[in-house]
């Protein structure tokens, strides 16, 4: 880590300011390590590219996500005006792919956040309290992990019936927390045995205080890196659900574009790009999150690598 700097004694500094200083220095260090890590940078560049695409979609995409074009027939193959052709409703596929970035990113990030929050809460409680509560939670976790995840998601998605953006985020978030819970629990079990927890107990800190102020901050780097990997998984889940026609109804996502292409036999009618391009987008975005997540994991949790 960075060089320790002596803070001048005498000049009073508010505890908030002190904490902010420490935090910003830590973040700066992590930033430097990321900048010097080739894997992390490749991942980051991919992520920045897609984030840009998502934000700039209204300006880059020539047509709206669900806007019929006037200068081509439905299902017309690629030409100069429509680089990937048009689909069965006469929507421009090139524009659809660009707009699809938004849904994939939003769903991926928010669903992973939901899953991480639930998983972290379960992992913290289960690992710290232990006893029968841990037993019950972990058995429930086993059950959720054992039921094929695709079935679990489809059933929950079917229950919600009409899926809007919030719906699909909840479906993926509510079914995807089990792995996080397990990872966090393992980490908490080892943190619980550390000296600072015992010290906290000695001076009479409450359990809530120990968990929130000592265990959680120490587990946070792991949780954060894990969340980024969960984003990748969530994006994949969304694409599978969309392919099964179970995603956001009134918007376009990559999985849905592939589903429509598949239903209209894009390959036989000479519109391979219709299937290939959105698929490649998913692959690259997920690749970016994986690369960044793994590299960050190595930077944030160096001890785990050198077991």
């Amino acid at each position: 880590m960075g060089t320790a700097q002596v803070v001048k004694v005498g000049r009073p500094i508010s505890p908030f300011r002190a904490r902010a200083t420490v935090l910003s220095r830590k973040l700066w260090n992590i930033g430097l390590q990321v900048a010097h890590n080739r894997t992390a940078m490749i991942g980051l560049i991919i992520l920045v590219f897609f984030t840009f695409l998502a934000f700039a979609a209204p300006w880059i995409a020539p047509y709206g996500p669900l806007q019929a074009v006037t200068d081509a027939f439905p299902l017309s193959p690629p030409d100069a005006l429509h680089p990937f052709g048009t689909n069965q409703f006469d929507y421009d596929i090139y524009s659809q792919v660009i707009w699809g970035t938004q849904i994939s990113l939003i769903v991926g990030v928010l669903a992973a956040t939901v899953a991480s929050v639930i998983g972290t809460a379960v992992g913290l409680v289960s690992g710290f309290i232990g006893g029968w509560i841990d037993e019950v939670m972990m058995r429930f976790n086993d059950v959720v992990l054992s039921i094929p995840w695709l079935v679990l998601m489809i059933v929950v998605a079917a229950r919600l019936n009409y899926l809007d953006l919030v719906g699909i985020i909840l479906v993926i978030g509510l079914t995807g927390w089990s792995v996080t819970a397990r990872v966090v629990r393992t980490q908490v079990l080892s943190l619980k045995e550390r000296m600072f927890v015992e010290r906290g107990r000695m001076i009479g800190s409450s359990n809530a205080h120990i968990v929130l102020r000592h265990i959680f901050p120490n587990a946070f780097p792991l949780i954060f890196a894990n969340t980024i990997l969960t984003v990748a998984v969530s994006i994949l889940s969304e694409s599978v659900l969309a392919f099964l026609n179970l995603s956001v109804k009134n918007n376009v996502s990559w999985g849905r574009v592939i589903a429509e292409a598949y239903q209209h036999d894009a390959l036989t009618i000479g519109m391979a790009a219709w299937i290939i391009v959105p698929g490649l987008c998913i692959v690259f975005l997920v690749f970016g999150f994986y690369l960044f997540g793994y590299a960050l994991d190595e930077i944030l949790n160096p001890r785990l690598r050198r077991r």
Partner: protein
Amino acid sequence: MVARRLVNAGITIFGIICLNYLLIRLMPGDPSLSIVPRDPKFRGFRDYVIAFFGLDRPQWEQFGIYLQKLFTLDWGTSYQYRRPVADILFHDLGWTLLLVGTSTVITILIGIAIGSYAAVRRGKPFDFVSTGLGIFLYGMPIFWLGLVLQSLFRKNSVVQGWIPWWPTLPTSGYFDDRLIPWNWDLLHVSDAFLHLLLPAATLSLGTLAGISLVMRNSLIDVMTEDFVTTARAKGLSPRQVLRRHILPNGMPPMVSLIALDIAFVLGGAYQVEIIFRYQGIGFRTIEAIGSLDYPLLQFIIVIGGVAVVLANLVSDFLLLWLDPRIKIS
């Protein structure tokens, strides 16, 4: 230790059975619709069907009947196929096991080979390429991979224009429709093998990366241990060090990973079965969800869950046998 594992597995299976019932009944829709058309003039018949299948009884009573049927192996008749659920399940299970089994064996063999070679050549081009490619494949939606492979190997595919001898492989079903009914002769077996190629390749490619990446990391972890240095110091060849010291110690994490992966592989198998119209457990499950075929659905999901639990149990025992140190902790 062993007893505890067994009890836990039992509890988990019971949990799956309960959650499964809850999940299915929570799904919206009217299951009788897969038997009776939606038309007012069939209302009487519909009421009769609902009463016949006991769908009008209180939930706890239905749950009791469900448990009783589950344990007495009297699994009832599918609404949609009008055939005994057990027959359908065992027929499909065989085909799914063939698909998942083939691809798991392929994946484990190739994954371990690639992973250990990458670990040995750490930091060299092979390691860099295989790891990068691995993460890339790991992020590929399996259904999309299946579509791409289909497009490459279908009749008149683009590749055939460039390479004349490029093969055409069947892309749907488990054997050619013209060969129905199934017989155990060379013609059927070879045809089933051809039909298995693409689905198994898709599933293997989709799950290969997980195995090879973990194998690589696990071996690299072991390589930093002191006993490896000792083995080198006493003059063993690199090959001997790898085979006698590194591999045996790198295997245990792999065993638990492969077992944990079964759930993931099943999820992938569901996608592959849909894309390739390979009518195994996954294909049938998705179909049954669509038509709310309660009898079929409730046992088909339990089978998947129980398979995962059993795989984990087997891996636990395998680990105990492979690594006696675990007993102590």
